[in-house]
């Protein structure tokens, strides 16, 4: 099968899947069901872009394919903030703040966290990205423990709300949060678009890329900032995704059969889109919301990922 045929086939399949997602069992109810589903579809689309792009970027700049941005602790900061909100304002605190208010504040907090990591911690690690990763890992643990401490103090009702927030879900977004998110993501992608060949060079490692004339420190900063924005948006939109990025990126590498980011990134976005759509379809129509998207994806993709590693003996 030729490459262009494959691409068009995949796009057609994705489109069909989207239509199926919108129309299945909807009785063509354009007043309630279909608008709701369109909103979910848009959330899935934006979430896929954020997740796939941030995962691939992150793996390239740290030169490791079994890491995802969540190791830096962005998501634990998000959860800590939600726990603090519930603790201080109670269950109706979230309603007072409104979804878009919470969205905006969460993004700001995560960006502030990333800014602190970058400008305060990175120079203290002598600009060594691996030290930063280790600190990120330790911070994640510390923040998660703080979150657990607060969890123990909140009421069972608030706790169940918190649990809901700690899963990936496409039902939380509102049209206005989506719109803001989409706008920011579009700006980020526009800025990052021209630097794709630089990413290819950076995958050769720090020293080789400097030798090939790439201002490594500058681009590490740029990409860390882009990743922070993308992760902040996806986390406040669909919740923590944990290690899903690893599965998605690795599946994309295998399918792409190339390391060119121009190829890998669109494939990763498509893979993520398909996985999310299928998982959501299963959650809605097969399991009737008795399981969550995260559980389903981690279960299926996790097994596939392990099989992939075993088959290629870790060379992927």
């Amino acid at each position, binding site marked *: 099968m030729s490459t262009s045929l494959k691409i068009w086939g995949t796009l057609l399949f994705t489109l069909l899947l989207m239509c199926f997602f919108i129309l299945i069992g909807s009785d063509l109810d354009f007043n309630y069901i279909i608008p709701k589903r369109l909103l979910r579809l848009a959330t899935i689309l934006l979430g896929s872009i954020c997740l796939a792009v941030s995962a691939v970027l992150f793996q390239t700049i740290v030169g490791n*394919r079994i890491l995802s941005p969540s190791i830096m602790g962005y998501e634990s900061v998000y959860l800590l903030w939600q726990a603090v909100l519930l603790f201080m304002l109670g269950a109706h605190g979230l309603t007072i703040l409104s979804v878009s208010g919470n969205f905006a504040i969460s993004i700001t907090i995560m960006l502030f966290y990333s800014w602190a990591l970058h400008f305060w911690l990175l120079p203290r690690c002598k600009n060594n990205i691996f030290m930063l990763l280790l600190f990120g890992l330790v911070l994640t643990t510390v923040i998660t423990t703080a979150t657990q401490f607060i969890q123990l103090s909140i009421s069972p009702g608030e706790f169940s709300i918190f649990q809901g927030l700690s899963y990936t879900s496409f039902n939380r977004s509102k049209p206005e949060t989506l719109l803001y998110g989409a706008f920011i993501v579009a700006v980020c992608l526009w800025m990052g678009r021209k630097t*794709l*060949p*630089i990413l*290819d*060079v950076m*995958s*050769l*490692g720090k*020293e*080789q890329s*400097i*030798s*090939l*004339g*790439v*201002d*490594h420190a500058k681009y590490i900063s740029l990409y860390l900032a882009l990743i922070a924005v993308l992760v902040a948006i996806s986390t406040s939109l669909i919740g923590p995704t944990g290690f899903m990025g690893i599965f998605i990126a690795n599946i994309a*590498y295998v399918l792409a*059969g*190339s*390391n060119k980011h121009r190829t890998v990134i669109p494939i990763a976005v498509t893979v993520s889109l398909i996985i999310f759509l299928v998982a959501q379809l299963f959650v809605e129509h097969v399991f009737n919301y008795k399981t969550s998207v995260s559980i389903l994806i981690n279960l299926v993709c996790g097994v596939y990922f392990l099989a992939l590693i075993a088959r290629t003996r870790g*060379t*992927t």
Partner: protein
Amino acid sequence: MITVHNLHKTYGTKPVVTDISLEFPTAGITSLIGPNGAGKSTLLMMIAKLLEPSSGHIALNGQKVNNIKTAEYAHRVATLRQSPGFNLRLTVEELISFGRFPYSRGHLTQEDRDIIEESIEFLELEAIRNAYLDELSGGQRQMAFLAMTVAQKTDILLLDEPLNNLDMKHAVQIMQALRRLCDEQGRTVLLVIHDINFAANYSDHIVALKNGTLKFNGSSEQVITENNLKALYDLDFEVIRNKRGCLCNYFNL
């Protein structure tokens, strides 16, 4: 031409390179030799702008390298480190095209393609040009990396132990290729090398370091003598010269 002025490098409190000043000759192979921990690689990495000197400076044609932008430096100096534990799925040709990145910034022109072609021919990699790097032997991979560095078309090439882990045949191939680069294209090659016989037979110039200081600096004939090598490595040497070259024997003496 590269000149080094009062160069110092310390890691923490440990001095690695102490007060080195020297001038590397243009067009020809210069080998950096010396025992482990002599500071050879550190010196080379500072010249490559991959390490910052603690004090002193390095100049390229009189211009301090600190003042040359990374992108501009890549047009003039190409560096190859010990080929990394590599797990990218790249073909040989794709790897070599990265050598054109300093010029093309990712969009190859016809000229870039011609130069890539030329580098493939130069190192005789036609047969494996479409092979994936992770499927090659260490020697073939090293040749591919060298081809990338050659395609960068810089006057100066810095190579950190290019013969590491290679069998004799590949080592000879690489050294002959470097020889041709200097003789046919007038390029300057600086390399760190451990095998004293390769250094003695293929280089024009030898710089010997010990404990971070400059010990000997001169033409290959001047530096490779029994007394110098004994002082450098604390080993007895027998240097046998004939018209085919020279052999440094340090076994069973």
